[in-house]
């Protein structure tokens, strides 16, 4: 039977500026899916933009290259990854006037 593991990497955290989630080792997994649950969004023209990032060592990072995920209000958002190497994280940007997003971020892995 294949392994599967879901990690909640951020829990009820509010972001109002650029951020990156903690490095997460996923070298054992063939596939990954990020789930971003936006609980609250505030600010004029608020936009949360998320870029999946990859790393060989958890120290040096680059964008994975797939289209970024954009959120403007509460809801559940998701994106899938394959062929990502060993480490994963999300790089986030918060746009808008006095904008902020309260989120739960989970990473579901299978391999």
């Amino acid at each position, binding site marked *: 039977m294949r392994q599967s*593991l879901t990690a909640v*990497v951020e829990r009820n955290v509010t972001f109002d500026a650029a951020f990156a989630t*903690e490095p997460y*080792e996923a070298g*054992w997994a063939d596939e990954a899916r990020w789930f971003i649950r936006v609980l609250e969004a505030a600010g004029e023209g608020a936009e949360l933009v998320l870029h999946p990032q990859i790393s060989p060592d958890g120290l040096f990072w680059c964008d994975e290259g797939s289209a970024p995920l954009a959120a403007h209000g509460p809801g559940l958002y998701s994106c899938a990854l394959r062929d990502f190497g060993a480490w994963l994280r999300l790089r986030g940007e918060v746009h808008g006037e006095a904008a902020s997003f309260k989120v739960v971020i989970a990473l579901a892995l299978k391999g």
Partner: protein
Amino acid sequence: MTIADDLRLALIQADPRLSKFNPLPRILFYDDFDEGVHGWAELIGNHDGNLDNVRPIMADLRPPQLSSCTFFDIGTHGSVHGTYALKLATRAKANHMAQLIKRLTFVRQGLVQFETYFTYKAEQIFSRAKDDAAVWDGNFDPSETDFGDLTISNDVCEGHEGTRYHCALRYLNTDEHGKLVQKWLYKTSVQTSTKMHRAGIAPPAMDYHVQHPDDWREVPGGFQPLCYNEVPTKVNWHYLRWSFDTQTRRNTELQVNDLVMDLRDIPVPVYEVTYKGLSHLLNFCIDVRTHRNVRNFLYLDSVLVSVDW
């Protein structure tokens, strides 16, 4: 020794997975982390469905990772057997702790023994503060002083509305100033529970395990420099055997490599109030805490827990 004892010992010694352990008569579980996380889960504080109500000290204890022990300089290090180890990682934030828990209940009271092969590291950093007095001399590496502490603990409740207590043993690598201490400690107060916090019996905890951060004492003979091995990317695995007795409510022994500490005379704090819904609770916990704004990691190759039931 009976013939059955001899046969059992021979079988254990002939099994490469088990021969590095010294199990009590019944193996309760054996966790090889090449096969998954085996029920070691992130601990979270109690809540009513609203995660904003989790106490801060228990709100961000970080999920488990299956690590190949891969580093920027050499790539994959691997574990003792196979590729993967169970990894706990703190944030790069002073006093942040990561903790994993495995939850069981007990069939009978008696001796319980936790064994593991572990290693510990601080994350590689590439520039140090100018006021950091620690200097790399080719042997000593300042990163060793970036590692704070690690703790093994349990959570036992003897029955419905039963007596509850936690045994906790901490390896304090450095003090809050980054000075090497390298001693094993035991705690002298109960852990602040959510019930105590909500009842106003105890202030918000600064140290997850105790009511006041100073509520720790040195285990007699517990000074033990471990094998950090000079840099943050060389991992050497250490044998650890910890036993406790749920009849006497005491730790019994802690062995780390060649150091064996007798803990039978060391008191274990017991809650004054009883707890509901925790009948026969038997939880095992491991955690790592950083004292600096540097991520700290704790890796377990495998775990074996055995009992004398």
